[in-house]
């Protein structure tokens, strides 16, 4: 949208051809002899050792999974173990040149990558640094297990530590790297630059981009590698991540200091299978995966296919690519060709491939082949090789013994501490800025045109005579959100915001109007129409320590970011054993007027998922206070806004919305109107329908309704609602969400449970119809209306004298409608 980018019809309509550069395929062909000038013998042997450690680690797991036994240690591991036997050269080559600042993200099959990156980090770090990391991480709990048994050097101890922390995590031990809460598919160790693996195929495809974005925006050293499988090229989030990472604006529009492609390397560990599906020849059409790079940007993502069976080929490629990334030329795509000998998982009978194929690849086994080359080149003797092999077996046996011992490696005691996992779902911290430093802004806050405009507005919606002030002069709900956000932009240097139309337009609903003037590009930018990547990158940004506000323009687009919102955002704090924070506030705008795919209130869907805080303010005062609280916190918050009421003034909080900073605690409902006769609990914009209904009840039926605005869905303090119900004995709950499965049903059920004896009638839930949302002109038949509320009270709670119901609320109709699935 930037005006300075002129779209010239003369250029755009010109005839021509798109040309592609050749994409290198397995170009590396050097011998050990040739590489001797680049590597010392020790380097070459270390590469071998690292591969051997990974191989034995995976063999151990395979034996335990298939025979319940390894070297005399009996153990049953019922959980997952997706093994990477065969892929060791790819993993070690990938990690060889990475520093601790370089981050890797993984997949379900990442044990090898974790170990390779860890071994590389141990090699690069000094003994003191290692000591500090090991002693500090989780109060040295993991270290205390291994240090008793290791009498060697600090580096030897660190290797034990790495192997043990990983294996204990796989076996769900509290001494594991993530207290056993991550497990095989989610083990990670940030101090060594090992970031989360991901059990969802391609899950790291956009999260890793967010980590690269964090590095770019906050000028952090290092690159980010997303180790994902070849089959993940079929996943939307991976494409969205690649598209996001290759946005032109990074090079064209971002300010000089921040210019440059994101330092992200999509490393497709191409083992040529996705479950049993063969990517080349069956489930994909790319012929060679590296070809895809050519479709993403003119640099073709610097794509290459490299021989992942040769560790030196991988090392060489990563060395070159890292340089490119450090020079701001990302993103990069590598098609690292490899092969897994084990199945997708140990339960996989490999019925989809032939024995000949397996034998052919095993014949060229990377470990054996490299060993042969080393011996041939005189780098190492057979005896030395055997010595290394024996040491590795001894090491893995020792670690396995420790990690399978219930005394040494206990699991979380949920019987004794039943709340321990619950207490990790949120970090609940109050942090003004995620990092110290001066936030980069374009001008002083009071010079901002929007800030100046708001200064002239009335911060309470009614004048002295109780008459509503004209909309244009009123401080609106969108102003409340804006004030909180711009305030945080001037406090927290890490805060960034993006989404569709976030910049010049000021957001589709003018919430961000004025932000463009205040903020440089790297803090506020337009994203591609990639909801998955919008949230996914925010997750990566948040877990690296930055605060971020991704925006989903319409609630209906939440489906587009389902995996990110349901599987990623809520999980990482607890799955990391509270190592990570997730200060991500996802703004979600609930529409109206635009029909079936642009008007849905899906707050119930996210409220169902453990690990998300969910708020839905309906007044300017609440919007500002809740946004302040969300941005002060360290937890993921889904922040719902309603397009019906962006322009609404403040009618409840006198004398108006405060100019200064304040927080409204997430989880506290608010009594918007007091009354003794019936309670109406609302979520979102239906607050105003409830207030209208309350007026009718007062005027026509002499009933005083107490209207409570839930404000938050998760967490939620039921006490004020229960107190109200104790007083009134009656409660009606209303929101714009379709009634079936509405979160209000959960609330009604909880209220019934907690206040049963106080209820004079069943709690009645009013939601929208279980239909598609019709055109705006017909919306009154779909969304809850004032008369629905009155009819429901009359029919189900307390007959209103003289009231004539319009809606058919009979039990028979309800049963019949439900039986039709409507």
């Amino acid at each position, binding site marked *: 949208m930037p005006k300075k980018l002129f779209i010239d019809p003369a250029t755009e309509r010109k005839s021509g051809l798109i040309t592609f550069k050749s994409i290198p395929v397995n170009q590396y062909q050097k011998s050990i002899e040739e590489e001797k000038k680049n590597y010392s013998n020790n380097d070459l042997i270390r590469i071998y050792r690292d591969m051997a450690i990974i191989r034995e680690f995976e063999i151990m797991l395979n034996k335990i999974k298939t025979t319940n036994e390894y070297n005399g240690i009996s153990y049953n591991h019922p959980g997952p173990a997706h093994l990477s036997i065969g892929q060791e050269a790819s993993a070690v080559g990938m990690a060889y040149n990475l520093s601790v600042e370089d981050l890797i993200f993984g997949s379900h099959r990442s044990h090898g990558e974790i170990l390779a990156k860890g071994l590389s980090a141990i090699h690069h770090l000094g003994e003191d640094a290692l000591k500090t990391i090991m002693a500090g991480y989780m109060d040295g709990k993991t270290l205390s297990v291994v240090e008793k048994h290791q009498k060697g050097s600090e580096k030897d101890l660190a290797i034990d530590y790495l192997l043990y922390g990983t294996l204990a995590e796989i076996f769900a031990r509290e001494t594991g790297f993530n207290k056993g809460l991550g497990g095989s598919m989610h083990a990670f160790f940030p101090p060594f630059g090992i970031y989360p693996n991901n059990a969802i195929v391609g899950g790291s495809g956009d999260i890793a981009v967010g980590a690269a974005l964090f590095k770019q925006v906050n000028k952090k050293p290092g690159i980010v590698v997303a180790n994902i499988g070849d089959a993940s090229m079929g996943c939307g989030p991976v494409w969205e991540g690649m598209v996001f990472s290759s946005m032109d604006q990074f090079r064209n529009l971002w300010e000089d200091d921040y210019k440059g492609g994101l330092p992200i390397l999509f490393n497709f560990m191409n083992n040529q299978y996705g479950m049993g599906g063969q990517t080349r020849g069956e489930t994909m059409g790319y012929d060679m995966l590296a070809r895809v790079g050519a479709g993403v940007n003119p640099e073709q993502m610097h794509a290459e296919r490299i021989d992942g069976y040769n560790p030196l080929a991988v090392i060489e490629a990563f060395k070159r690519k890292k340089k490119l990334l450090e020079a701001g030329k990302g993103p990069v795509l590598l098609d690292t060709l490899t092969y897994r000998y084990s199945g997708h998982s140990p339960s996989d009978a490999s019925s989809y491939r032939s024995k000949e194929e397996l034998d052919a690849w095993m014949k060229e086994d990377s470990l054996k082949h490299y060993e042969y080359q080393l011996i041939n080149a005189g780098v190492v003797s057979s005896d030395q090789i055997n010595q290394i092999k024996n040491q590795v077996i001894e090491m893995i046996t020792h670690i396995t013994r420790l990690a399978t011992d219930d005394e040494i490696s206990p699991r979380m005691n949920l019987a004794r501490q039943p709340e321990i996992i619950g207490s990790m779902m949120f970090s609940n911290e109050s942090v003004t800025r995620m990092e110290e430093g001066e936030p980069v802004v374009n001008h002083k806050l009071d010079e901002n045109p929007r800030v100046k405009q708001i200064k002239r507005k009335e911060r309470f919606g009614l004048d002295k005579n109780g008459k509503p002030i004209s909309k244009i002069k009123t401080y609106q709900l969108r102003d409340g959100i804006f004030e909180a956000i711009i305030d945080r932009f001037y406090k927290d240097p890490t805060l960034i915001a993006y989404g569709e139309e976030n910049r010049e337009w000021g957001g589709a609903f003018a919430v961000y109007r004025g932000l463009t003037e205040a903020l440089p590009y790297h803090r506020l930018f337009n994203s591609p129409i990639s909801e998955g990547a919008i949230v996914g990158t925010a997750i990566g940004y948040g877990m690296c320590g930055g605060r971020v506000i991704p925006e989903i323009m319409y609630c209906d687009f939440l489906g587009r970011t389902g995996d990110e919102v349901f599987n990623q955002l809520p999980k990482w704090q607890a799955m990391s054993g509270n190592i990570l924070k997730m200060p991500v506030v996802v703004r979600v705008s609930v529409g109206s007027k635009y029909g079936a795919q642009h008007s849905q209130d899906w707050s119930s869907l996210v409220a169902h998922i453990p690990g998300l805080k969910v708020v839905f303010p309906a007044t300017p005062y609440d919007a500002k206070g809740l946004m302040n609280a969300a941005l002060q916190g360290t937890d993921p918050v889904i922040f719902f806004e309603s397009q019906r009421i962006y322009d609404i003034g403040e009618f409840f909080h006198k004398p108006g919305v405060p100019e200064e900073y304040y927080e409204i605690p997430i989880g506290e409902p608010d009594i918007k109107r007091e009354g003794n006769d019936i309670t109406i609990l609302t979520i979102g914009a239906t607050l105003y329908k409830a207030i209208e209904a309350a007026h009718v009840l007062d005027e026509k039926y002499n009933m005083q309704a107490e209207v409570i605005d839930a404000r938050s869905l998760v967490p939620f303090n039921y006490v004020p609602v229960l107190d109200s119900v104790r007083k009134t004995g009656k409660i009606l709950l209303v929101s714009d969400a379709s009634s079936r499965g509405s979160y209000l049903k959960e609330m009604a059920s909880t209220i019934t449970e907690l206040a049963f004896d*106080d209820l*004079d009638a069943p709690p009645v839930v009013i939601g929208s119809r279980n239909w598609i949302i019709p055109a705006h002109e017909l919306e009154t038949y779909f969304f809850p209306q004032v008369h629905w509320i009155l009819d429901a009270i009359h029919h189900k709670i307390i007959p209103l004298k003289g009231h004539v119901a319009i809606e058919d609320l009979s039990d028979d109709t309800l049963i019949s409608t439900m039986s039709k699935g409507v």
Partner: protein
Amino acid sequence: MATPVIMPRQGQSVETCIITQWFKQKGEQVKAGDLLFSYETDKAAFDEEVKITGTLLGIFFEEGDEVPVLTNVCVIGEEGESIDEFRPGSSEVKVETDEEEKDEFDTGIGGEVPDEKIKPVGDLKVSPRARKRAGELGVVLNGLSGSGPKGRVIERDVLTVAEKQPFITPLARKKMEKDHLIYNKERYKKGERVTSKDLVTQTDQISMDVERIPLSRVRKIIAENMYRSLHESAQITHHLGADARKIMELRAKVKKEMEMREVPNITLNDMVCFATVRALKQHSDINAHFRGDHIIRYRSVHLGFAVDTDRGLMVPVLKNAQSYSLPEFAIKMKDLAEKCQTGKIDPDLLSPSMASFTVSNLGAYGVEMFTPVLNLPQVGILGVNTIQSRPVSMGNGVMGFVPFIGLSLTYDHRAIDGAPASLFLQSVKEEIENFRENI
């Protein structure tokens, strides 16, 4: 952890058992293997042993209670733990035994009054809140018409009724519903309280002029003892008159002496009692207790004597009554009677098992003859009647009128037969007729 002990099921056909004895009391420390209680079915008796060591936190049934099998009988645990959750939801025995205490405010939830019993009969739909408010305001739900959706009784219906009527306690409501009792609507207005004791039958309501008097503790004990006495023993009464001239003379002399000097006021009753003590010394078969499988005969006489007080009948005991001279005897008797009147009597001295025999005197009320009721386990009680003149042959064909004092001896035929009882009564008569004592 508090653990309930259930009434075991002894055989498939057994539905209830009776607790025959508790070996442990509430609050007592118990350890595994101790005898806890014994119980019986209609066919056999059993002992229940303690299975876990701890404190006996509460007992839900008493000796003699009939308990459905598998019902919680008591709870063992650590001191301070709550036992409410184990309390059997329905215990008809308990509800009935302790009316006075149970007739307090009670929400009806989890308490002694099972919820289903205050549920209205029939198809009446009542909101939980209306039911709760009815409990708080003492409104009977029966017969209410609901103004809520589908005729549901809702809070406002209860409030409307509560505006007009007194507070009816939960037990009263339960009784009203169960036993079809009513209260006098003329008498109890809003703001007043109707308890189960204020309930009357429909017939009472018609006759109107009734008053219900709650039983005092003393009344309850008397009622219980008297009923048990007649229920459990074989009582028979013999009547006999004794020539009262000697004691009347002595009484006149006492009165005269009292005008002149400080002497104890020795009444006719003192004299009769004194005579009885002497007779008892000669007849230890009636100066005795009957204890079911054996009899205790007392060498000394511990004389119980009935005293009418404001709080009801009391029977203090004068221990070792045979050891006193008549004046001492009279002083002691007077002292004990006064202590009963003023409520300062040692309660131990009121126990029926303290006395070996009792005298009850209704002569002052002009009673000519009555059948006193035994104070079990005592074997005998002597009723003393008014003095009446009877024609008596004075010899030589001359008839004269002689004052006779009536004596009514009730004895327990389980312990003693008619002849020895009669011999004792004769002894009393002789002692009275030959009464010769210093004052």
